[in-house]
């Protein structure tokens, strides 16, 4: 039974995708896609108890590692598997068969199939214990993402997708190069095996070069400062269910891969971590500051993501149990908050679209305000839990200067949160509003996001998983 649950988050969406295309009916395809995504989430949920005790392995074709490909689910990737599948399901819910948002509205089953394949790719990166498998799944998720972004309603969406393709492929190629260098140093592709061999190999320099290449590649995919330039235009160009999905988990999966491969398998040393942490802190400030100057809401939120993702990278770079816990909390916090904000905004693109929103769309205003409070890091929301664990993790390991950077970043966040709230609450509504009110099925994901935000903010659940994950990575509390 565990075996089925283990591979289901990858196989379920992957196998549903062709079915959706073959059936060809938009409505059925929509329902099937949502079911597949939520089914994956359910499988991840059911696995949580098992992986809390010890990592669960699945050997494909019964080939024992290090020869065969294995999937390893542990306390670090299983919660993220739940996160990505839930995010995909909720985002898919808003991509209704009758939506006119996407460019190829007449080929909706293809859109759903791409979405599912993207999810399968991300889940594959999370699940696999094989280094080369990571590359394959990375490319599956990337190729489908290019298609999804190009489905955006703007004329420039194809251009944005193309630019993303160029940078994404470069990133993927660096990953491939890194894997090749590791293979040269160790002769193995299995993660656990590579980890062992990298510490013994006489070609340590080659191994280190591979680690750095992987880091470079995943930084590009994760839009990690300073390789983040593609992110704002992609978020602005994509259809909003795609933007929400990308914001909620695509970049986070790349950060996961970076943490798992470069930090854990590659065993990046203390200097490397320090550099990584410093660059991330710069990214925190840079992203937040840039967000304050954007004229387009989505670009502003995208820059905010650059800043918020850098928090996760910084947390991982600490190399302590508290750091991993902080990263885990921020994974969930940012996914719920930013994904929720994009889903609640829906087709909104400019600040004029939300002017006087409180006078005409109370529900959207309430949900958006709550989520923005989360982004601000108000107590009881997930944003606060993340900030708290991050600050105490930094203080715990004596990084006082880092504390200053983090605090400054959260202060700049006040500015862009206020930029979001001022039109909603203080400006007066335009004569005619062309954004329809948030109703029906579109409400559900936003409400789930808000509930998730408060759940993570008021219970130590995410932090608990963070500490369990830290234990599997070998950090002691």
């Amino acid at each position: 039974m565990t075996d089925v649950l283990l591979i289901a988050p990858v196989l379920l969406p992957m196998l549903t995708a062709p079915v959706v295309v073959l059936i060809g009916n938009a409505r059925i395809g929509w329902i099937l896609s949502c079911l597949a995504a939520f089914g994956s989430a359910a499988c991840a949920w059911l696995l949580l108890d098992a992986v809390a005790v010890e990592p669960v392995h699945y050997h494909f074709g019964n080939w024992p590692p290090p020869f065969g490909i294995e999937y390893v689910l542990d306390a670090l990737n299983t919660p993220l598997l739940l996160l990505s599948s839930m995010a995909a399901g909720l985002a898919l819910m808003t991509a209704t068969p009758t939506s006119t948002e996407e460019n190829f509205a007449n080929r909706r089953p293809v859109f759903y199939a791409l979405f599912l394949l993207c999810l399968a790719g991300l889940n594959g990166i999370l699940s696999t214990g094989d280094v080369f498998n990571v590359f394959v799944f990375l490319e599956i998720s990337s190729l489908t993402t290019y298609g999804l972004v190009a489905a955006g309603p703007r004329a420039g969406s194809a251009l944005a997708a193309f630019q993303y393709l160029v940078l994404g492929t470069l990133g993927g190629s660096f990953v491939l190069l890194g894997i090749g260098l590791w293979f040269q140093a160790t002769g193995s592709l299995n993660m656990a095996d590579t980890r062992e061999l990298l510490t013994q190999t006489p070609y340590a320099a080659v191994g280190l070069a591979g680690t750095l290449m992987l880091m470079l590649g995943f930084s590009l995919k994760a839009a990690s400062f300073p390789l983040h330039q593609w992110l704002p235009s992609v978020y602005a160009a994509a259809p909003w269910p795609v933007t929400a999905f990308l914001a909620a988990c695509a970049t986070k999966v790349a950060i996961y891969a970076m943490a798992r491969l470069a930090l854990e398998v590659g065993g990046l040393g203390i200097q490397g971590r320090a550099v990584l942490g410093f660059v991330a802190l710069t990214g925190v400030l840079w992203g937040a500051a840039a967000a304050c100057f954007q004229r387009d809401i989505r670009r502003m939120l995208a820059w905010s993501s650059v800043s918020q993702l850098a928090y996760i990278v910084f947390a991982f770079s600490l190399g302590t149990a508290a750091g991993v816990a902080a990263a885990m909390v921020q994974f969930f916090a940012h996914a719920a908050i930013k994904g929720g904000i994009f889903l609640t905004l829906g087709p909104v693109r400019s600040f004029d679209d939300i002017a006087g929103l409180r006078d005409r769309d109370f529900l959207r205003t309430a949900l958006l305000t709550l989520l923005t409070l989360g982004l601000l890091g108000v107590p009881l929301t997930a944003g606060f839990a993340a900030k708290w664990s991050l600050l105490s993790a930094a203080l715990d390991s004596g990084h006082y200067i880092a504390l200053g950077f983090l605090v400054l970043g959260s202060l700049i966040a006040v500015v862009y949160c206020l930029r979001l709230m001022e039109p909603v609450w203080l400006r007066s509504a335009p004569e005619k509003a062309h954004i329809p009110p948030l109703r029906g099925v579109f409400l559900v994901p936003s409400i789930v996001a808000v509930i998730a935000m408060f759940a993570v903010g008021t219970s130590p659940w995410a932090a608990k998983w963070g500490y369990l994950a830290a234990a599997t990575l070998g950090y002691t509390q």
Partner: protein
Amino acid sequence: MVLLSQIFFTLVGLLLVTGLYLVIAQDNLVKKLLGLSVFQTAIFVFYLAQGKLFPGAVPILGGEVVNYSHPLPHVLILTAIVVGIATLAVGLSLVVRVQEELGSSEEDEARHRERNP
């Protein structure tokens, strides 16, 4: 032997840099894609080079063969080539759409038209 592999890896490095240069410096979207392909091919060569031994036979058991070439890099690169082709295809189709929607396949001009429709 060492010399040969060093020549190989130098070649790989040259190809990598050439590809990267093309991607960054070229304004034309198709040329960018070509650069990308060169970049990827360099990595393919890098993989294949590390699998080959001189003298090294095809990895099939039998005879008095002492050294076998490593088959795994070939298999991996087969996958990577497929990925590369798929990327190229998606990229080219995106270029077609950019040309259709914005009337240019030069990056700067397309971006300019996007901002000032």
